């Protein structure tokens, strides 16, 4: 092959795909139909559930209104009140709101398209530990009233992989919905172990790698205990083209060998869950933005990351 002046792109592409492997079973029509049918059933169930929840909420509102009209006497509303729990599961928390300046989506940096970021030489995930998904979930929900006053946080989904199908590493992923005054949003954890490199060195490696160095608002943090972090001050993404793609990110590199990434997005992770077919790696387009700001500041995301990095590890 030579780099020709007149590049025959089609011929080059043909050459690339001529050595393709046989079609895998995952593309068998019967298997695809079966998965498609499961999704349809889930959608129907979700619609039915949403309709039931709306009906229940309407009943509560009507009952409360009637109660107010008759002078606030206790009545059937006290019986109906727990219906709220069905809309927000028992894991939800709510506290008094306090003013926080949240990044507006339109402030998003226009970051050039990213390239892969490998690990520094000598880094390995073998034998390293991770916190359990259940512990991450519990810690985040417990900290939410303090870190996100006034917000309602609901657990959406947890994945724990000993060998992540894409990266080959162990991984924990936990998604949450977050409803605050700005509307519905979400935040999520992605946790990887690392060995063979210090936390500070790994943070520096990521900081100097694309896409971080192209986002001028990225800040590096050094913790007194030898851990380190990265925080994006502004949402990442090109708002003009992808208003729903804006997001804030924070990473905490714990000295014990755990990297905790936290992102915060202007749409609910529960909306992404159905589209992703319960597979966090399909990378389908993000749902439409449902608010004009990110639901938390990147610094708040960093606090969540730091908190979770302190959890006990198991290999």
């Amino acid at each position: 092959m030579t780099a020709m002046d007149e590049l025959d792109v089609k011929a080059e592409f043909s050459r690339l795909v001529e050595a393709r492997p046989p079609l895998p079973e995952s593309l068998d029509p019967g298997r695809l139909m079966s998965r498609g049918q499961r999704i349809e059933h889930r959608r129907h169930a979700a619609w039915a559930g949403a309709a039931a929840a709306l009906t229940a909420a309407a009943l509560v509102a009507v009952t409360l209104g009637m109660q107010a009209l008759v002078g606030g006497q206790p009545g059937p509303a006290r019986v109906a009140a727990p219906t709220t729990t069905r809309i927000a599961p028992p894991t939800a928390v709510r506290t008094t709101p306090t003013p926080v300046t949240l990044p507006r989506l339109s402030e998003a940096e226009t970051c050039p398209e990213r390239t892969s970021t490998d690990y520094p030489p000598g880094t390995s995930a073998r034998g390293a530990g991770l916190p359990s998904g259940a512990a991450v979930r519990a810690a985040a929900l417990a900290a939410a009233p303090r870190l996100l006053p006034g917000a309602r946080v609901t657990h959406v989904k947890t994945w724990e992989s000993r060998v992540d199908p894409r990266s080959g590493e162990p991984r924990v992923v936990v998604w949450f919905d977050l409803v605050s005054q700005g509307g519905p949003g979400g935040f999520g954890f992605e946790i990887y172990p690392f060995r063979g490199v210090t936390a500070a060195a790994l943070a520096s490696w990521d900081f100097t790698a694309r896409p971080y160095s192209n986002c001028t608002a990225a800040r590096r943090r050094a913790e007194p205990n030898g851990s380190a972090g990265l925080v994006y001050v502004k949402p990442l993404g090109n708002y003009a083209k992808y208003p729903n793609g804006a997001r804030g990110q924070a990473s905490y590199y714990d000295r014990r060998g755990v990297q905790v990434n936290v992102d915060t997005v202007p749409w609910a992770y529960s909306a992404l869950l159905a589209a992703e077919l319960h597979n966090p790696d399909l990378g389908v387009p993000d749902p439409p933005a449902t608010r004009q700001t990110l639901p938390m500041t990147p610094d708040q995301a960093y606090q969540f990351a730091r908190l979770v990095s302190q959890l006990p590890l198991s290999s």
Partner: protein
Amino acid sequence: MPRGADDRDEAFGAYVAGRADAMRSTAYLLCGDWHLAEDIVQNAFIKLYAAWYRVVRHEVLDGYVRRIVVRTYLDERRRGWRRERATESLPETAAVPVGDPESRIMLLRALAAVPPRQRAVLVLRFWEDLDIAATARLLGCSTGTVKSQTSRGLDALRTALDLAEATAQNEEMA
């Protein structure tokens, strides 16, 4: 079972059987990884199945699947959260050895150096044979953008090929 479900399954099965290989090749040219290409195409076909009655009315099956494939690829590149590993070698596949594998590796590396949107434009125009207007519609941009992305993409591919060829020659000499 909803009305017409049997018809859908039969038509869907026939469509997948006929187009899965081609769509997977398109996805592979976009992402450079057969496993990821399979994931992307699987996702696209499942969505097609769920939207079958809506899509089939307009007889735009290929366009629908192609759009999902390209957007999934671009969004994955844009997502920028999970760590991606740069690969030093071709992904492990059960491929039948055909042609010159070294030159394919070189070409794959060169293609990986082309920015994602430019790469998508090259694949749509030169592999899928879409014209400028159709490419612009699929990517949601202007025809002028498609033209400029095509030009830049070709430049980037030529440059990357030159570099890959020079590197290979140096390795041979060493």
